């Protein structure tokens, strides 16, 4: 998804503000930026603000873009920062510092060993279940959530996720593991209740 060769876009035209090239950039990446913002903020108005601010800042910053990451990873990076600022404004009590490693070394705790894989697809993907899947992601701590969204929902590689968040690959892997296991616990509680009684 994000491995696009840079030559697909002319950086020179983008930097010159060429309307057609800028429009192409926006149409290519706006859906993924909007989706990311929606997943992070769960509020369409805030997501739209993040979308607009991301492209405004990206266009201003294009002269300094050095191409060390792909354009899409670079845009994700700006969007993540915008979304984190939005969260800080609306929920100042929430810790959204991605850099600290608090909790990264905590023991992994598993409490559920119920096998719910046998549930029919209709049950696993019911509209109620889909709502629960979203809710479970929202309940993840911020720094686990953002890694999970970029890696597992948006399909970035570990390396790209690290670049977008300015984190090492080791930290991305650690947080991804914790995010996935926490979600597995939550889904096990939800789907476990839907298993037929033996």
């Amino acid at each position, binding site marked *: 998804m994000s491995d696009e060769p840079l030559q697909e876009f002319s950086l020179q035209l983008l930097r010159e503000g060429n309307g057609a090239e800028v429009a192409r950039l926006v149409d290519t990446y*706006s859906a993924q930026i909007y989706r990311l913002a929606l997943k992070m903020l769960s509020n369409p108005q805030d997501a739209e603000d993040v979308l607009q601010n991301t492209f405004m800042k990206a266009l201003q910053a294009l002269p300094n873009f050095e191409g060390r990451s792909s354009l899409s990873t670079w845009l994700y990076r700006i969007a993540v920062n915008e979304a984190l600022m939005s969260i800080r404004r609306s929920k100042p009590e929430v810790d959204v510092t991605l850099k600290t490693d608090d909790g990264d070394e905590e023991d*992994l705790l598993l409490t559920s060993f119920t096998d719910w894989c046998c549930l029919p697809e209709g049950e696993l993907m019911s509209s109620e279940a889909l709502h629960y899947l979203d809710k479970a992601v929202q309940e993840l701590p911020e720094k686990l959530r953002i890694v999970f969204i970029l890696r597992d929902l948006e399909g970035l590689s570990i390396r790209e996720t690290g670049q977008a968040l300015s984190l090492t690959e080791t930290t991305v892997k650690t947080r991804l593991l914790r995010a996935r296991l926490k979600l597995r616990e939550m889904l096990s509680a939800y789907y476990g209740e839907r298993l037929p009684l033996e």
Partner: protein
Amino acid sequence: MKDNLNCGAFLEEISDYVDGVLGEALCAEIERHIADCDDCRVVVDTLKKTIYLYHETSSARTEIPTDVRSRLFRRLSLDDFIETKHL
């Protein structure tokens, strides 16, 4: 989970295991462990299913609503390019 040191070590590798990026030797070791440890087998199966469900549901990609796109183009002074999608 069985009181077995292998379970803890296994858990640290489980994410790479389900992503299929572990080396062959470690993979084989994990598969031997799963064959003997029912709790860890359930954790692997339900973790794979968890990731599968999120992949499946996120692949129904959200498109950007038309009005959101129009406002974005106006904010970027791209009014002349609103009518046609440039992909």
